[in-house]
């Protein structure tokens, strides 16, 4: 067993109640590392042959929560959530931060593989080299704060009773889904610590579909040994020196929470009113207003990271008194602020916290709320459809709508399917094409960075990415962009992942000799090809055609209507040219399908075989 790994994975079949340990041989771990890479491998191996028929919300899908060898040892501890995505029907690696992965590794597990569906709500409790399925009917339906409070108390008591002399037990770590996940809302996230979410992919709904409310871990063993402790120690300090600056400048000082103003005002790439605009100069939405009025803790971190890009925001006065969330970070600020026509920091914090409590992905769910509001603005959705008016900036109305979605009431049942699927249904219902207002790529609502001003994200970053709308993992040249695939597979936070040091760090932890070159040219490509194959096979409800869907949403080609870059838009010719270059670099044919010889060279014969039917 290579170093850096705890040595085994936990496999839980919720249908039969079977719990067992599984291992992967060194070859698999060396090639796929962990996290996103290993998720692609596991999903393809187990579901690849019948991929198109697997319902992401059916018992045959897998729910994966995987760490990597660098997790908890490298600053910035995250875990990668995956499965067949109910948003894109492909494979997305969606990571979230918190202590859960550290506790999991200390319990002796590198990850959890969940299959089947429990008859009643359950949670999985993991302690040292042991796991059990426990009843969760008392927390089913509970929002974030109650879920955490009840599980914390219950599990701490259990642990303290088990070793009555041992003293106070620390809190266990918990990943859970909120009420949105329970209702199988396709924009539901997997969450941790109230406000940390793995949003892209819709894996909260996968948890809900399995009747799995939470996975709770408390490990009391040490983290796995590393191959070269002295080197790791030096690199650990160096990463800290570079990213977790003593003087608390970026990212420690601002977090990304000052972006809500800056991205709109400077780069003109922030969604405003469902991306109808991307520019605003609302100084009252600026960082200091969040900072001095609401941030009660300016530096909030997760295990092993002194970067503290998070800030604890609490509203202490007024109608939203008692609300708390982190930051909100830039994406939440944008999606639950300007994109809903909200320019008041307190209101933005309230809506951001509401999305956390209900278990939405703030980006994906926020996108759907704005989509509905634009349809209301255009008179396509009416007061009769919604039950109330839905005007830009109306916090109360957006809250009502979010709760309707969670309960799947009326129009909420349609919007619970996510922006794109809702657009298809509403187009049919109203007899007008509303898909042009849906800002998504292949069913995944887009991160809060536009391409039109030309100053922020690359024109094909979302369009060709197997992560679709994910803003953290855009593609560009099939070489430099492989770095993010590595961060998601070794599972570290991309904000503190040092592109230079991470390779030495990885070698010092595992003792393996993988180089950046090998990763960027071979190992990373394998993972992308598997993700791509799964995405193109898709199904059962939607199948993507790369000729149509390897593209930005229509809105990204409308000229910017305001701001310093008024009139600018994403250039179609550039997109086509970059797409052509990317296809060639990664090894896809002119239709965007991975080439047979490329797959065979990488040893992915089964992927090649599965794609044969698409090449005809």
């Amino acid at each position: 067993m290579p170093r850096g790994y705890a040595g085994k994975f936990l496999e839980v079949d919720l249908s039969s109640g079977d719990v067992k340990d599984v291992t992967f041989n060194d070859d698999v771990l060396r090639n796929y590392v962990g996290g996103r890479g290993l998720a692609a491998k596991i999903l393809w191996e187990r579901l690849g042959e019948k991929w198109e028929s697997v319902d992401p919300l059916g018992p045959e899908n897998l729910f994966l929560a995987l760490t990597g060898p660098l997790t908890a040892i490298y600053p910035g501890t995250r875990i990668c959530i995956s499965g067949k995505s109910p948003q894109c029907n492909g494979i997305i690696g969606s990571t979230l931060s918190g202590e859960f992965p550290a506790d999991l590794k200390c319990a002796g597990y590198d990850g959890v593989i969940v299959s089947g569906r429990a008859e009643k709500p359950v949670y999985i409790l993991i302690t040292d080299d042991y796991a059990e399925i426990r009843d969760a009917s008392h927390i089913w339906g509970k929002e974030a704060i109650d879920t955490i409070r009840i599980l914390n108390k219950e599990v701490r008591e259990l642990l303290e009773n088990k070793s009555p002399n041992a003293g106070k037990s620390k809190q266990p770590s918990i990943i859970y889904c909120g009420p949105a996940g329970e209702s199988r809302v396709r924009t539901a996230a997997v969450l941790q610590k109230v406000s940390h979410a793995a949003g892209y992919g819709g894996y909260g709904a996968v948890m809900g579909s399995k009747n799995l409310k939470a996975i709770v871990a408390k490990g009391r063993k040490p983290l796995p040994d590393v191959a070269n402790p002295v080197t790791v120690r030096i690199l650990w300090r160096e990463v800290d020196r570079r990213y977790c600056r003593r003087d608390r400048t970026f990212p420690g000082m601002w977090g990304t929470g000052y972006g809500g103003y800056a991205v709109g005002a400077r780069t003109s790439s922030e969604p405003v009113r469902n991306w109808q605009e991307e520019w605003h100069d609302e100084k009252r939405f600026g960082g200091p207003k969040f900072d001095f009025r609401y941030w009660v803790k300016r530096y909030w971190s997760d295990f092993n990271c002194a970067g503290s890009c998070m800030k604890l925001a609490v509203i202490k006065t007024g109608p939203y008194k008692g609300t708390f969330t982190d930051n909100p970070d830039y994406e939440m600020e944008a999606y639950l602020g300007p994109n809903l026509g909200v320019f008041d920091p307190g209101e933005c914090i309230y809506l951001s916290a509401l999305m956390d409590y209900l278990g939405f992905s703030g980006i994906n769910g926020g996108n759907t709320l704005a989509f509905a509001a634009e349809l209301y603005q255009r008179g396509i959705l009416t007061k009769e459809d919604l039950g109330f008016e839905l005007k830009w900036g109306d916090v109360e109305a957006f809250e009502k709508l979010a709760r309707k979605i969670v309960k799947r009431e009326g129009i909420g049942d349609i919007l619970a399917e996510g922006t794109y699927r809702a657009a298809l249904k509403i187009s049919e219902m109203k007899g007008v094409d509303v898909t042009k207002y849906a800002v998504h790529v292949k069913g995944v609502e887009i991160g809060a960075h536009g391409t039109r001003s030309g100053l922020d994200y690359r024109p094909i970053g979302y369009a060709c990415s197997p992560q679709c709308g994910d803003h953290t993992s855009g593609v560009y040249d099939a070489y430099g962009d492989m770095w993010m695939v590595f961060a998601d597979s070794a599972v570290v936070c991309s904000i503190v992942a040092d592109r230079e040091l991470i390779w030495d760090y990885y070698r010092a932890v595992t003792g393996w000799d993988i180089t950046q070159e090998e990763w960027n040219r071979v190992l990373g490509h394998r993972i992308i090809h598997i993700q791509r194959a799964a995405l193109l096979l898709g199904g059962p409800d939607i199948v993507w055609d790369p000729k149509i869907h390897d593209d930005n949403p229509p809105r990204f080609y409308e000229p910017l209507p305001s701001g310093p870059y008024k009139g600018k838009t994403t250039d179609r010719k550039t997109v086509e040219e970059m797409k052509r270059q990317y296809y060639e670099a990664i090894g896809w044919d002119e239709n965007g399908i991975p080439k047979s010889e490329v797959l065979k060279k990488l040893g992915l014969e089964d992927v090649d075989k599965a794609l044969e039917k698409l090449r005809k």
Partner: protein
Amino acid sequence: MNKNEVVWIARDFLKCSGCRRCEIVCSLHHEGKIWPEASRIRVFMLVPGVEIPHFCAQCNDYPCIPACPVEALSVDEDTLAVLVDREKCTGCGLCIEACPGNIPFLHPGDNKAVICDLCGGDPECVKVCQEANFDALILVRLNKEAAKRDVNRRLFAQTPEEFTKDVAVNLFGEKAEEVI
């Protein structure tokens, strides 16, 4: 360090980011590996956002010491820290009960009591917290005789639950009642 001087770790829970790098360096120093559960300083987070670094406060009356039935605990005369004789310790847990803050705990490996020894007067946790510029842990130097008389130390021997309640009220206001 001056022989008449001792150090004490002052703590500011409101400034603790929860990075837990103190747990990492503490366990590296004492155990040679990253072992959060064996760290002499343990960050409790009973409510998200409320981070309580929990470790021995060196009460000047040392209630833990007489509670030990096998005399495994003693005061380090150089640092005033409590030392655990791991040969003698039977893991009965009586020192934990005697501590007003239930601060000691049994080592997850061998079930012997674990108590902060101030790293012999040069605590690693403070260094890493200071390096990150959080100042949640601050090293104060005191005259040894004055330190022995300082009754305020024992006010820091509280349970994580007690500290959590106070810090939660400070951070969340009225909401604290609901989140605890």
